[in-house]
């Protein structure tokens, strides 16, 4: 049945049709027809952010936590350009986000109209696909297509730019009759699976490295089955954290620039690496020429362009992590790697002193773990605290660690945590930031209050942009150029926003403050005043080999 409705209504209806239930956005001139129609669709909850960047990060957080598309909305010009960092973040971390932007009316495009910008051109390299809708008659198909593309195969962001007059244009609309069919994922050939299984059987020092693809593909059980059947130790990349249980005897930890010594040693000694859903990026491999010099690589990834892109591959398998790993488990003979695991254990170092004692990152994270019974989702920002959380937080459930990995976007945690909360209402969500990253998007506290979003905010305050300061200490002769950073009084700031604020300066106050913040019914902020010049150890210098870490002086 065809109805005649405006483009704005078509947009709303196709979003409702697709099951979208929350939008993060900010209105403005060129998107007003959409906002005029929106109140007629109560199933579309709109979260009014304080900056469009936060809308994109929140949509990203929602997508990562729910496994469904996250949607953000902005007006033309500055609204659209403010989305760019969030879209680039989602692009680097394969997150299905759909951004909807208003555009100036068609007759005005190309005239440098007020708030006109070529957002389609700007976002070409950081989106999987984007559209400038030229006629409302195309809009329903474009929205359906965009939602499908964002999720298909390796997920990613998609942008739909809709001129204001197209939003007002009335055309015939036919509701969709059924769900779109996702394209079938590629499947592995028997031959490649057999060759991979043969390599696993023959290896003396095999390792598994698992990344974000395992979380995106929901391949937890299969990955665990492969590890347990073969005894292969498992390394989780930054975005693979929580894809494999932290306390499992086969779990080694995170590799790369801030990986533990035994993890990187294991890579350097391995004769086989079975990589699942990771892209061997430079923070993982260090100097590529020196990476895993003895290892053959079996690489399983949904994106064929990743196979062999960074490391030479003995067997490349293009396919879904879950489906391929399941077949590989069946094809692999049971074995153990006890001698190899003992060798790796021999490389373990005692934990670095800066992690222990008083207001150490470990003590703070233990307090959060205890207050939430280990059942929270942690969203981290970028920097030292991000590495401490990655190394120290004992994740119990899959997909409970969310961070900006590829783009390394400071300011990500606070808005992304709002999206995580909406995807997992009723579950504790802690956004952990440094004092630098927190100040980038702290205005979102207002969004949390206005929309009733229960996000707990942890600020690791050391008065520095700590990771940059650490690099300056190690590589720039301790010249702390522009890294000391002043902070407001966070407790008073929280109070100004109407939320409880706690400052913890002594380890003795940790349990009480974290417990109270966690129990508060709405958002709450805890500032942790930590040592000013603590470092993240060990560290592989940029471009260095995994064999040559900088370690803490004992």
């Amino acid at each position, binding site marked *: 049945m065809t109805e005649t409705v405006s483009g704005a209504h078509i947009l709303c209806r196709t979003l409702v049709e697709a099951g979208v239930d929350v939008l993060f956005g900010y209105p403005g001139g060129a998107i007003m027809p959409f906002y005029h129609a929106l109140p007629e669709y109560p199933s579309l909850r709109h979260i009014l952010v304080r900056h469009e960047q936060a809308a994109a990060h929140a949509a990203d957080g929602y997508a990562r936590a729910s496994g469904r598309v996250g949607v953000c909305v902005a007006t033309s010009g500055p609204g659209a350009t403010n989305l760019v960092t969030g879209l680039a973040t989602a692009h680097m971390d394969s997150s299905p986000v759909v951004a909807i932007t208003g555009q100036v009316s068609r007759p005005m495009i190309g005239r440098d109209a007020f708030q006109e910008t070529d957002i*389609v*051109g700007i976002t*070409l*390299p950081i989106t*999987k*696909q*984007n*559209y*400038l809708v030229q006629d409302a008659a195309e809009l329903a198909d474009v929205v359906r297509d965009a939602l499908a*593309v964002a999720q298909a195969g390796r997920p990613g962001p998609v942008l739909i730019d809709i001129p204001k007059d197209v939003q007002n244009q009335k055309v015939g609309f036919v509701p969709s009759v059924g769900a779109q069919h996702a394209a079938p994922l590629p499947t592995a050939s028997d031959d490649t699976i057999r060759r991979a299984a043969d390599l696993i059987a023959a290896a003396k020092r095999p390792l598994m490295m698992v990344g974000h693809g395992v979380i995106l593909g929901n391949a937890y059980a299969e990955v665990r089955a492969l590890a347990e059947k073969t005894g292969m130790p498992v390394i989780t990349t930054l975005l693979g954290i929580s894809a494999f249980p932290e306390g499992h005897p086969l779990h080694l930890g995170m590799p790369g620039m801030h990986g533990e010594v035994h993890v990187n040693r294991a890579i350097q000694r391995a004769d086989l690496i079975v990589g699942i859903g990771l892209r061997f990026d430079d923070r993982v491999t260090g100097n590529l020429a020196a990476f895993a010099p003895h290892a053959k690589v079996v690489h399983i990834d949904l*994106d*064929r*362009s990743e196979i*062999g*892109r960074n490391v030479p591959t003995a067997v490349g398998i293009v396919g879904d992590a879950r489906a391929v790993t399941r077949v590989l488990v069946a094809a692999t003979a049971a074995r153990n790697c006890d001698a190899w695991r003992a060798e790796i254990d021999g490389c373990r170092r005692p934990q670095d002193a800066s992690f222990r004692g008083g207001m150490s990152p470990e003590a703070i994270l233990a307090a959060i773990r205890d207050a939430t019974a280990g059942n929270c989702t942690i969203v981290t920002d970028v920097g030292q605290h991000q590495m401490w959380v990655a190394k120290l937080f004992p994740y119990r459930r899959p997909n409970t660690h969310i961070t900006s990995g590829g783009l390394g976007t400071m300011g990500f945690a606070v808005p992304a945590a709002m999206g995580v909360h909406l995807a997992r209402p009723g579950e504790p969500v802690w956004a952990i930031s440094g004092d630098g990253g927190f100040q980038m998007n702290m205005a979102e506290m207002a969004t949390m209050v206005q929309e009733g979003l229960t996000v707990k905010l942890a600020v690791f305050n050391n008065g520095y942009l700590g990771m940059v300061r650490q690099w300056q200490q190690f590589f720039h002769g301790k010249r702390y150029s522009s890294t000391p950073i002043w902070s407001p009084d966070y407790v008073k700031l929280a109070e100004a926003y109407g939320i409880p604020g706690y400052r913890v300066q002594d380890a003795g106050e940790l349990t009480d403050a974290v417990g109270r913040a966690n129990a508060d019914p709405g958002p709450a902020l805890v500032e942790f005043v930590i040592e000013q010049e603590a470092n993240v150890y060990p560290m592989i210098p940029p471009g260095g080999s995994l064999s040559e870490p900088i370690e803490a002086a004992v």
Partner: protein
Amino acid sequence: MTAEHTVDVLLDDTLLTLNRAVGVLRRRNLAVERLTLRPCGPTGVSRMTFVLNTDAATADRVVQQFHKIVGVRAVEVTTVQNHTPEEQP
């Protein structure tokens, strides 16, 4: 070793798809020796042909990136070693 790689791309004849395709070359700062675009077969499909003078691994990576573009239907590479005459068919 560098060689001449002729890359043939069948893709949707829309400006955005063409823009994305050229963007792959631009982002990698690749020296494109020739670039042609012409209609091909069914309506709405174009054939983009370009010649890269580069090593096989780089050419392969470019091809993989083209496969990822929404709207690209097929990619084919013909490689001509540089020491062979240009007059190959």
